[in-house]
């Protein structure tokens, strides 16, 4: 783990994953971009509006017999709501995402062995062929913005970062997400899983529950 100092307040800023290029200081909420051993402050993340999520940075869970730990969060908002994408690190240093919305949880991994379809070619109901990974069907397409971020993340997750998120579903509980951001397009493949199956530990306390 790499520990650097916040250029704004001097507090320790941890980087558990080598893939992390961005962090939010947990004390002064400065948003920081990392280049090797240097941190540069690019802004401040404003306070989180009320949220009911039970996940927090430090939550651990199990997926596909592998333990993961949540190390960062990207909360995105769209016209009809918001969802959380929790950045997670696995035991061997690989990274993955835990997507959480309205009690649905999906765990997915970055997938590089495919040329993603263009944004313009996708409509709800269309299928996308991910080769050996199977055929997926587009469930929804949403334009969204980063409304909050914390912890460490693999890209610059400044508030207001715009992207288009396309959710797809495959065989049984399989899911995929294609994210079209300003400079890059990323594909994630994974599956939905029930809350209990994750065997979450170190969940956030929710008042009254």
């Amino acid at each position: 783990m790499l520990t650097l100092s916040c250029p704004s307040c001097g507090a320790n800023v941890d980087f558990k994953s080598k893939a992390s290029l961005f962090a939010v200081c947990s004390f002064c909420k400065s948003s920081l971009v990392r280049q090797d051993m240097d941190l540069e402050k690019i802004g401040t993340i404003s306070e989180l509006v009320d949220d009911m999520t039970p996940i927090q940075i430090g939550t651990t869970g199990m997926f596909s017999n592998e333990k993961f730990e949540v190390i960062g969060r990207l909360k995105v908002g769209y016209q009809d709501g918001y969802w959380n994408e929790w950045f997670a690190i696995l035991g061997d240093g690989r990274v993955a995402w835990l997507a959480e919305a309205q009690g649905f949880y999906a765990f997915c991994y970055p997938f590089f062995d495919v040329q993603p379809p263009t944004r313009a070619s996708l409509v709800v109901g269309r299928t996308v062929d991910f080769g050996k990974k199977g055929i997926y069907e587009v469930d929804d397409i949403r334009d969204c913005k980063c409304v909050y971020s914390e912890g460490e993340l693999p890209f610059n997750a400044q508030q207001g970062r715009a992207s288009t998120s396309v959710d797809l579903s495959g065989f049984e509980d399989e899911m995929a997400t294609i994210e079209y951001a300003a400079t890059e397009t990323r594909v994630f493949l994974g599956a939905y899983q029930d809350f209990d199956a994750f065997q979450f530990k170190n969940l956030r306390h929710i008042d009254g529950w």
Partner: protein
Amino acid sequence: MVGNPGEPEQPDEKPVDPTTPPPPSKPKVKTFSCTACGAPVTIRYPGATMSVVCDSCHSVIDVTDKNYEILSKYFSKADLYTPTIPLNTRGKLEGKTWEVIGFMVRSDVASKYYWMEYLLFNPYYGYRFLTEDKGHWIFVTMIKRKPDNKAGIGTSITGLSRVQLNDRVYRIYNRGLSRVDYVIGEFYWRVVVGSQVTSVDYIDPPEMLSNEYDETENIWSLGKHVDTKEVEKAFKIEGKTPKSFYASGIGVIEPSRATAEWKKMGPLWALFLGFLTCAQIFFSGTAKNTIASQYVGNFVPNTKINDITIPKFNLEKNSANVKIAMTAPVSNSWFYVSGEMVNNTTGASYPFEMTSEYYFGTDSDGAWSEGSTTHDLEISSVPGGEYYLNIDTESGDFKNTNEQSYSITVSRDTPSWHNYWWFVFLVSLPPLYSWIAMRRDEVSRWSNSDFNPYVSNS
């Protein structure tokens, strides 16, 4: 480490991670003034809730909007409907605690048939719906997995009559437009009174698959029947659910005991009948069918003869049936025999009587005939030994009064279907009763369906 999600827990059990300070633990309830009427409006789950209904004026307010924009204003000034389970009540269903945060009345646009839906919330497990339809309750979970149609063609599923999910096949029950008539409480979407979606229900009791879709969404959910008593106990509203006279018939996916019994009994019955028939065919095939005695006697027509003794004959085997067959030359006349078969050793007697009659003629409908020149009867379980017959004969309506002859044949161990049919009848009574009970329940279940399989379309 926290306890089980949904259970009360001790906040001080949580580890304090120095690098991530615990999130604010202040009460989350948020209050603001209704944009329409100024009355205070409370949001219990801000951040999760997108729209809330003002208690005072029933305006629906968008809480994601900074100015608390009104989504629908004064759609109803009075409390038109009272939820059976009050808002903000918590109860345990399927092992988890749920809080009722919203209540809707929805109806089918075409038939005006309406039902209630409760929105349940648990911050760990998300949202569920509990529907109340004329005293029948269904616990509904939204699902991400898509059902298949039987041909496996994915989701463009509007014309399907059967869909499959996880090895269960669900049959279409209703399809129509559902409208939101009335709302109170808070919702995770922008609820709009009067909004309509197409909804299709498929059932395989005690489960239901529902598909609701419009231009922007296509949502599948899985419903499971919940006993009224379980709902009452969970939300501590014992005796407050509408009384049983209100609960009409069987619920859409309420399990029927009669149907369950029939499903068990039907195949068992078929199996048993099959076995019985095989056994019957086997025993018929192996019956020896020997002639023990053949007697030919003379009679003068239209007279009575008493006390004819037919010579002794031997019946083999320890116990088997005996068939007595009589043939007489009747033609627009009758011949009657009564008597007994007597065991020469024990004196045990088997009385019998039989009639041969055969009539024919012509009337306005043409030629007709009835009866037969032969008659036979069966005596079951006759012990082996030496027997003789003692008979009286009588006849009538003969035109030809010359002496004529009749014959009586005694056969031993003949193939017999007599007992078989009795057995089939008796064995079929309970399944028949079960089938009738099953049908009564299923006819009631499907009576509100546009796809009722118990009504022919002709």
